[in-house]
Every structure is written in structure tokens, then in C-alpha cells.
């Protein structure tokens, strides 16, 4: 650009007068515009175009018919969802398991990162970190297999250990007690993801100015005080940004874990929206109902994101939007 005579004035107009007329600004940034085109196209095709499919939720959609032949039923499917006992249960489970996963996930990852940061011996630190994030790379089907066999009454390690410690008298059927299900899912999530989630906090911790620690030390802070008053506030902004981003996923409690670990006995506590959609939508060819549930999920997620964002704004913290 530098070797073209016109380039320099262009650049100055752009930086000096930021509020130039729109067209002129666009012209000035046309290279950037062109570069962003593929991304815009990608988003249009994969994120906006599919919204068209939402009309299915207001029809009795049949894949065999063309658009004009579909039967329109208004809000029938939404009514079915919101009056169905099973769906209300499903909604409760989804939210509960999400919140459990989120809170547990955040808390354990932050605590783990801070504790890991305190280990001074490099070799141990590396080893622990590697071991802790490896489960992240296993697929859920493997993890649920491990979970199911460790919880088995038939020589599963959890029961064996608890029996040897005389905490319980006889093996507990963990997977057939509805009330335990959320806990099992939460614990599985922690086991699989804690090391991975901690990475970002470890990175944030390294960016804290070491002089703060020195100052704290001079003021007489011990190790725990330093964690509490230097490290934690140092990663606060990261925590909040991640929290807002995760709010959008609150209705994504997951599908695989619950589907693979769940069974008839615990269905009241294990079924999430995605499983409901699969069972009452895809499996019996009721696509409209599946779409209605999907829309419901999207609307709640968007609302939650905006809520979290505005709360964060009021708290005077960084925000996403």
C-alpha cells in the first residue's frame, strides 16, 4: 500500500476522522470488507438460513409434502410442550443439571488452577496438569462406560472402596436411584473437564504482575492471603467473561451423558430437552414438535445471555456485548 501515492491520505482520513460518512468509511476499509465476506457468508448459510426451518414448528410438518401443502396448526406444539408434565420435568432437569455442571465446573476449575499454580516443582506441576486434562480427549461414550462400570454393584470400584472403608454395608445401585443422577452427571463432568477448564485460568494467572505478589508479601500476606487477595481478583475478569459466554449454553445440559447413563428407572431425573426432542420428535417422526422444543430452547438461551450481560454491566465489570 505504501508504494501507491493515494494510500497515505486515505490512511490519515481513516484514523483522524473516525466518523466520516458511512460510504466513505466502507470504501476506505474495502479490503477488510472483502476479507470478512466469507465469514459473513458462512454465518448466513449455516446460522441464519436454517432459521427458515422454524416455520415447521407451526405446521404438522411432513417431509413428503411441499411447503404449500403443509398443514398449519399455529401454536399447537408449543401448547403441548408447556402443558405436558414430562416436558416440565425435562425442563427442570435440563436447567438443574446445567447449573450443577456450570457451578461445579467453574468452582473446581478455578480452585484447581490456583492450587496447581502454588506447586513450585515444575515436574510435578506438569505431570499433574497433563493427567488432569487427558480425560477431556475421551469421548462421552467411553467416559460413561467407565462411569457405569465403576458404579456397578458387581465389583465396581466405588462400591468396593466404600465397603472396604465400612461407609456402606452393601453395594449401592447408584444408577438406579433417581436422586443420585444429577450428582453422578456433575461428578462425571468434573472428572472429564476439570483439567481442561483450568488451562485458561492458569494462563490468566501467569499474566498477573509479579510485583503485586511482592507488594503483598511486604505487607505481610501469607500464601493463602495472596491467593485470596491477589490471584483471585487477578482472574476475576476472565471468570466473568466465561460466565457470560456459558450462560448461552445453560439449556445445553448435554445429551450424551444423560442418554448413555440414563435408564427407565431414573427417567424423571435424567431426561433433558435434547433427549425429549429425540424421543418425541425424531424417533416418531414428529419434526414439528422437535422444532418447537428447539425454538423454546433458543429463546431462553438468548434471554439468559442478555440478562447475564446486563447484570455484569451493572456490576461495573467487563462485558461481552
Amino acid at each position, binding site marked *: 500500500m505504501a*508504494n501507491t501515492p493515494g494510500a497515505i491520505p486515505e490512511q490519515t482520513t481513516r484514523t483522524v476522522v473516525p466518523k466520516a460518512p458511512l460510504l466513505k468509511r466502507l470504501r476506505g476499509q474495502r479490503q477488510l470488507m472483502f476479507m470478512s*465476506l*466469507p465469514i459473513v457468508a458462512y454465518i448466513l448459510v449455516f446460522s441464519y438460513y436454517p432459521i427458515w426451518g422454524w416455520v415447521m414448528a407451526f405446521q404438522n410438518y*411432513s*417431509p413428503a409434502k411441499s411447503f404449500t401443502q403443509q398443514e398449519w396448526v399455529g401454536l399447537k406444539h408449543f401448547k403441548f410442550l408447556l402443558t405436558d408434565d414430562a416436558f416440565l420435568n425435562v425442563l427442570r432437569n435440563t436447567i438443574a443439571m446445567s447449573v450443577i455442571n456450570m457451578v461445579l465446573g467453574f468452582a473446581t476449575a478455578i480452585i484447581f488452577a490456583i492450587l496447581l499454580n502454588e506447586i513450585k516443582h515444575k515436574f510435578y506441576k506438569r505431570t499433574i496438569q497433563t493427567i488432569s486434562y487427558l480425560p477431556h480427549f475421551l469421548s462421552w461414550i467411553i467416559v460413561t462406560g467407565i462411569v457405569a462400570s465403576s458404579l456397578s454393584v*458387581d465389583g465396581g470400584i466405588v462400591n468396593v472402596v466404600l465397603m472396604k472403608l465400612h461407609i456402606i454395608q452393601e453395594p449401592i445401585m447408584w444408577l438406579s436411584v433417581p436422586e443420585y443422577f444429577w450428582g453422578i452427571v456433575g461428578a462425571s463432568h468434573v472428572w472429564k473437564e476439570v483439567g481442561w477448564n483450568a488451562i485458561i485460568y492458569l494462563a490468566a494467572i501467569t499474566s498477573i504482575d509479579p510485583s503485586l505478589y511482592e507488594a503483598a508479601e511486604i505487607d505481610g500476606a501469607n500464601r493463602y492471603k495472596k491467593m485470596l487477595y491477589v490471584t483471585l481478583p487477578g482472574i476475576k475478569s476472565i471468570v466473568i467473561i466465561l460466565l457470560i459466554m456459558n450462560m448461552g449454553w445453560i439449556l445445553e445440559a448435554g445429551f450424551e451423558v444423560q442418554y448413555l447413563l440414563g435408564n427407565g428407572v431414573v427417567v424423571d431425573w435424567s431426561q433433558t430437552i435434547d433427549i425429549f426432542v*429425540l424421543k418425541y420428535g*425424531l*424417533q416418531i417422526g*414428529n419434526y414439528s414438535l422437535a422444532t418447537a422444543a428447539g425454538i423454546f430452547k433458543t429463546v431462553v438461551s438468548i434471554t439468559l445471555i442478555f440478562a447475564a450481560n446486563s447484570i455484569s454491566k451493572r456490576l461495573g465489570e467487563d462485558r461481552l456485548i
Partner: protein
Amino acid sequence: MGGLKKKKLWGSVSLVLALSLALAGCSGDNEKVTTKDGKEVLNITAFIGTPNQAPAKDNRIYKKIQDELGVNLEMEFLVGDLQQKLGVMIAGGDFPDLITADTKLVSAGAVIPLEDLIEEHAPNLKKHFGKDWNRMKDSSDGHIYWLPNYGVYTGEFISNYYSGPAFWIQKSILKDAGYPTPKTLDDFTKLIRDYAAKNPTIDGQPTIGFTTLASDWRTFPLLNPPEHLTGHPNDGGVVVDDSGVATVFADKDISKRYYKELNNLYNEGLLDKEAFVQNYDQYLAKISSGRVLSMFDQHWNFQAGEDPLVAQGKIGQTYVGFPLVYDTSITDHYLDRPVINLNNGFGISKDAEDPVALIKFLDKLMDEKYQKLLSWGEEGVDYQVNEEGRFYRTPEQRKEQDDPAWRLINKAEGFYAAAPKLEGTFEDGNAIGAINQPEEFYDNLKPEDKELLDAYGFKTWSDFFSPAPENPVYYPAWQVDLKEGSDAAVANKQMTDTSLKFLPKAIMSKPDEFDNIWTEYVDAYKKIDVKSYEDRINEQLKWRIENWSVK
């Protein structure tokens, strides 16, 4: 404007182009024709709706089909849940040439009618399905969409081997008790109680007296026993009375009696504690460990768990099926006459580029020559022919057939199971399939099996069951298509869900709590629109009686 700027512009334009090309590539069509040895090979993609191991790359039989018929089969087997897979396929609108039968695909307009294709291009198929032609027509529009894979017999009907529903018990228990014939549920549980008391562990692991399965769509091991115990044939979720009226039985007293018995077994520690938590794979693994004394199931469903026991020579831990009833005044109706397996087999999808070539290929396979290849294998390699023209296998050849790994390389089982096939006997009198050849069946019996059959004075496994009476016209009701997304389909789903939730709870409760939980179950059942389900079934049974009766 300098030249460099133009280049930049072109750079971003070509980036866009590259991206759109990449996107277009996703929907690109497969290269249809490849040449090999100068011959054109037709690639046929097929989706098979059962989980199966993909055949070995250089599978002998598939290779022979490719060499002789010029067809290369690209098969995809089911991984995970079938309904989910089909749902996604329909939503995506992308289908393989040959597709596993499912009524959902008809509603989605994903498959093409076959009757004209068969009439014009497939004489073998036409002849094969001739007498079932009307049954194969879809009740809503009169078209034929599926080529059923089982249940059409030619020649003589031979059944040595029983693969249907029964209460299965380990052979060693029978031997131990002096070969009794349990008739009722009580006889049966007594055998198990006695044996389990004598053998608390088997091969070092705790004995499991009775197990069952209720995972995914395989809920029949848990849900179907009551209809059989009352002398009804397998109609799925309903029992049909003499006047042809179907009623749901899951919440009725005939069911309560059975589940109460399971509740007793559970409280005695004889029922598998993990029966309701296990998935299909865990169930099979448990059976192949040899410590499960008994269960209710259909033989084809747990066969894969029995194979390793046979391969290890643990014949005593394989199973014999008994047709149990509640009391001896009831005649058992487990064994039924073969009916065409409607809504099963293959259909041709609307995406198939050359349906004529597909139907011609399937038609050629119906030729006896290829049927022999698919069922028996290659003459001289997989079986021998004696002077009288009877097929038999040498002991080495039989041994090979017991080895699952060998079969992946040397048999075309995945495709054969899903494709339309001849059953019964060939024109030369040999049975189709070694298991049905009487002398081969007997010679293939392990010494333990011969001993057992001799003790009962029987020749085959089917002899344990009452002979099958004539089937009613509408039979079986479980093949009724509920119509996708209909109230009946939703009700059916809710009924299954409710049963899977309450039955385990009731079975695993303390004996004095059983009645309360049963009442809860019945109440929950009342909230479901069971009537729409029964109505749909009855309407279809009536339709069948009208349209299938001898014209």
C-alpha cells in the same frame, strides 16, 4: 488504483470462491462407475438398520458378487439408535440407494414404489413374493415399498432351530435336575432357585438367576412375557381376542401376576440387580460370561451372547427355550407359522440413480445359484455335496462357521440378513441354510446337545413347543404401522416410557410395597391416550381381515 490492490481484491474473491466450492463439495455426488478388469462396476450404497461389523475388505463372497454381477456394495451399518439415524437422514434429505425398511421413510416420501419395477424387471422377486403380494401393499396408498427379508417359504418348511420368544434356561440346570420339563412359571423358578442355591458362583462370579433387558427399542424381554404366559401369540403390545379385537395388556392383571413373580425373585436375590440399568452390550456380555441361569427373550436377540460360549465349548451354559404358561390349563402359543416380515428388508430410495439396475441386481441374487452362495457358501470350500446330492459340511467347515472372525472374511452375513431371501428348500431338496438341513443339523449338534435332546426324546429345539396353529389373517399385530407423528405413535411412546419407569420400581420394591407401586403405575397409565393406540391397531386389523382374506 495500483496493480497490487487489484491483486488483493482478487485474493479475497478467490477466497470466497474457494469457500463456496468447498461448501458445494459437501453435497457432491459420489463417482458412480469405476472400471475394473475392463468391466463396469456399479456402486450400490446401502444402509442396513442393524448394528453389524463391517465385512473384511477382501471378503470372499462380496468379492465374488462383484466379479460375477459387477456390483460393489458399499454398506453402512447402524451405529447407535436407528430411529435417530433415520430421523437425521430424513431431515437432511440424503439417502443411500438401498435403505433399510422403516415406515417413517414412507411418510417422508423417501422411498419409491416398487410394484411396477418388480413386474417389469424382476421375475424372480415377483415369483418369490407372489402369494404375499397383497400383504406387502401399504395400507394407506396401496403401493409396495419394501422387499421383506424373512418369512416367505418355498418348498418344504423346516424348522430345527428355534429363534423366537421363550423362557430360556441353561442346559446344565436341566441336566442337573434330571431333564424335567417346566410347564409353568412356578416350575421354572423352582428349577432356578434350586440350582442357584447349589451353585452360588459360576466360573468364580456370582450366579445371576434371571435377567431381563429394557434398553432402547429392545423392550420386549421385559414387556412381552404376560401375553405369552396367557397363551397368546406374539402380537407385541396388545393381546387380540377371538373376535379380532386388540387390547393393551401392560397395565392389566395378567401383567401384574408376572411382575409380582419377578418381585419375589428380586427379593430373594435371584433377579439380576442391574437388569434395568444395563444396555444391550452389557446384557450380551453378561450372557457370554455364562453365569446367567435364565431369561425371557427371543433367541435371535441374545444369540450374539451365546456365540462365545459355543466357541469356548461351554455348551452346558447355553440355553434351551421353554414355552411357559401361568397354569397347565393354558395351551402355549409361542411357536407360530412363518409370516412375511412386513415393514422389514430393503427399499429403494428416491435418490437412487438407477432403480432398474438395483432391482435387477436384487433379482439376480434371488437366483438359487446366488442364494446357495449366500446361505451355504462355495461348494467344496464351505460345504460338500454327497452322492445323493445332499449338502453337508465337514467337521472343519462347521468349526469355521462357529468363528465370528472367520465369518467376517468369508460370509456376506450383513447384507444377506437384510436382503430378500429364499427360505425353506431349494428345488434339489436341500434346505436353504445349513441349520435347516435335518442331517446337517443333527450332525452339527454338540455331544451335550445330542444327550439333552435324546433325554427328552426330541429331534429338534422346536419340539419343546406346541405345534403352531393356523395364523389368524391379521397376525401379527406388532407389524401395524402406527403412522409417524400420530397420536397413536405418541401414546405408544408414552406407554413404553411409563412401563420402563414403573415396572423396575415395582419389581425392585419390598414385597409389601409392590401393590402400591402397581396402583401408581395403573394410574399413570390411565393418563395416557391408550385408546388412540388401540383404535389405530384395531382399525388396521380390520383392514387386514378385509383385504388379506382369501380373495
